Structure formats: C-alpha cells, structure tokens
C-alpha cells in the first residue's frame, strides 16, 4: 500500500504541475496535430493508399510526440533537483519509476484520444474501435516504459534533447513494428485473433521493458 501511495503521489504531482503549465501536453498535441496535417496533405492519400500509409504515419506521430513529452517530463525533475528530492525520500526507487511512467502514460493517452479521431477524419480510416484501441494502449505502454527509463539516462547528459530519440528509437523498433503491423491488419478488417503474433510481441515487450526498468531504474538515477 505504501508503494502505491508513493506512486500516486508522484502521478498527482505531475498532473498538478501540468495543470499549472500545460506545456507538456500542449507541446505534444501541437506536434501531433501538425505532423498529422503534414502527412495528410503532403501524401494526399485516399482509399486503399490511405489505409496502407495510415498505421505508419500514426505510430511515427505517436512516437515523436511521445518523445517530446518523455523528455520534458524527466527534464522537469532535473530542473531544480526534484529527482534528487525523490532520491532523498524514503521510497523505493521503483516507485519513482512507476509514478513517472504512469504520468507519462496518462499524458500520451490524452494526446492519442485527440489524435485518433483526427486521423480517422483526415485519412478516412476508422480507428476508433476496441481492437485498435487495445493495440494503441499496449504500444503506448511499451514505448512509455522504455522511454521513461531512457529519458532518466538522457536527462543527465549534456545533449539531453538529442540523446533521448537516439537511445529510444532503436530500442522501440520491436514495439513500433508490432504496433504498425497490428494496426494495419485491424484497419483492413482482420480480427484480433489474426494479429495474435503482433499482440503477443507487444505484451512480451511491455512486460520485459517493465521488468528491466524496475530492476535498473535505481542504478540509472543514482550516480
């Protein structure tokens, strides 16, 4: 219970800070909307072509918008020593990771809730169905888990804004490929059972990243 209380205290703190500034979600949202508009108007796709391009465009947008948010979320901890304050407090290091992960996940899901309808309209593909939302949730969870861990590493480097995508994108290749493939198949009308391989890959990736992050986060944030 104490662990959960600490996790929710960190999430509540991140939400309160974001309510004051709105800088993290607004930056992610503006980027996501602009990227979607550029993809839509630059490619000018209709019908089958739009259906083929939409999954890739969607996940590229989610990945880069997510990277913006992840980077800012951890930078906020470093700005005046907040992370040091967390490390000084009597709580498990993994509670810090879980709190940051849940906060990042909430911000990414919030942006996706606005992004998916926009994609549906501009690409003329129906994304708002249970199976696609499940894939989106699993893909986002995996991306946020690896991103939260790597952002904690990147934030202590001199080129933190550049470092996160360089570290994160190669590690996120499996989750992005699985998410794009599963989203594409589901958009073409496949049943969830037919994308079982990709679904299992997403679940395994999420679990492995979560386990690795929980085991290593303490070492990452300490000196």
């Amino acid at each position, binding site marked *: 219970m*104490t662990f959960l*209380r*600490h996790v929710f*205290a960190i999430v*509540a*703190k991140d939400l*309160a*800070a*974001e309510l*004051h*500034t709105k800088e993290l979600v607004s930056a992610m949202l503006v980027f996501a909307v602009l990227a979607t508009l550029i993809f839509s108007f630059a490619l000018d796709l209709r019908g089958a072509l739009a259906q083929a391009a939409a999954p890739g465009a969607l996940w590229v947008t989610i990945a880069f918008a997510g990277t913006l948010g992840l980077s800012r979320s951890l930078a*906020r901890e470093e*700005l*005046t*020593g*907040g992370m*040091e*304050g*967390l*490390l*000084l*407090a*009597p*709580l*498990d290091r993994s509670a810090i990771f879980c709190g940051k992960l849940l906060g990042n996940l909430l911000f990414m899901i919030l942006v996706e809730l606005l992004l998916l309808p926009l994609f549906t309209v501009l690409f003329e593909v129906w994304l708002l169905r249970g199976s696609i939302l499940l894939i989106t949730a699993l893909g986002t969870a995996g991306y946020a888990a690896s991103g939260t861990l790597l952002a904690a590493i990147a934030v202590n480097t001199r080129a933190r804004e550049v470092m996160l995508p360089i570290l994160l994108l190669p590690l996120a290749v499996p989750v992005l490929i699985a998410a794009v493939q599963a989203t594409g198949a589901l958009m073409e009308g496949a049943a969830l059972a037919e994308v079982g391989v990709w679904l299992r890959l997403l679940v395994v990736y999420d679990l492995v990243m979560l386990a690795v992050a929980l085991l290593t986060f303490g070492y990452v944030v*300490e*000196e």
Partner: protein
Amino acid sequence: MIKTVALTKAFGLRTALSRVTLQVAAGEFVALVGPNGAGKTTLLRLLATLSRPTSGTLTIAGLDPAKAGEAIRRQIGFLSHRTLLYDDLTAEQNLRFYARLYEVPEAPARIAALLEQVNLTARRHDLVRTYSRGMQQRLALARAVLHRPALLLLDEPYTGLDPQATATLTALLHELAGEGCTIVMTSHDLAQGLALARRVIALWQGRVVLDAPTATTSAAQLAALF
C-alpha cells in the same frame, strides 16, 4: 549518529574524499569547512545516501545505507545548493507532495506551521517559479525539516540569502539544535561556520585536516590551514 571509517570517494582518477574517519554524536552541530573542491559536498552527499562510497564504511544511526537506505533517508533532512522544489507547483503543493512521500503525520497543520515560520503563508498558493531566490531557499528549508529529521545536512545554506532569509535560517537552526537535531553544515565562510556550530571539521584536498571544538578554534587558525 554518524560514523565513517576510511571513507573514500573517487570520480575516475580524481579522489574527492580520501580515507575520512569521523564520528558525529546525536545532537551535535558540526560545521564542515574548507575551500572549494575540498570535498565538503562530496562528504555531505555520501551522508545523504545520494552517492555511494568508493571504499570505506559509513553508518548512520547505526544503519548501513546499502542495506537500510529507506530507514536512513526517513531520518535525514537535506538542504542543498539546489532547492529540490518543483517550480511548477505552489509552495503548499510542494510541501504536501513531500509530506506524502515522508508520510508526515498531521501534514496540513505541520505545513501551515512551517510556512508561517518561514514567512511564506501569504504566498503559499503562488508558484515557486515566481519566488525570489531567498524565498525559494526559505521554502527549501521548510521542505528539509518537514518530516522532523533527526539528522539535518546543509550544503552552503546561506548562499544567496537575503538578510530576512538569513535571520530565519539562523533562528530555525538554533531551534533545531536546541531540540536535539544533529546538524552537519558545510560552509566556505569560516567565521559563519564557527559562529553557529559547536564543532568544526576542516577538509582540504579530500582529507580531514582539523577536527576541534569551535570554542577553541579561530577563523584565522582555519584560514591558515588552507
């Protein structure tokens, strides 16, 4: 309260702290003095469990930081160069957040009392980023003592403070020392360190070069060491 034996910390080839052996009893007020780069902050970070020693042993309240980190951290208050506050939260939100992490009993009353003590009650709903440096430092002090720590570690706490904040800090330190709180404070201001503490430990190039009561030590004597 604190016991170190041959405590050493190296960063690559550079040894920041070399075989420091000392004991600080519960309730002592110790000033750690020395020039820049002497190893004061390194020692304080080791005591705060923010850093791991390269070699040697450290126990705080009889506990080993490697095995009982959480139990030790519950007893430590730390005021560093950085405020450890969130700029995007109000003063009250910052203290409420830390009160939840430290599970401070009767937190609202404790927060209200501390904000009053550091003269920030009127600004408690303002974002910390709108505060002056002195106000931020006063709030950082409230954060550091929020959970009534048995050991208070202060890293150059007077740096950048205005006269009001200096007076508030001095009064609070006297009060905490009177209540039996163990205080270790770094300072490069030798006179200030001597005026506040009961014992002075001088560091130079990572080594303890003097450990004496402040009553028998003068600022000129300390200055001659460096």
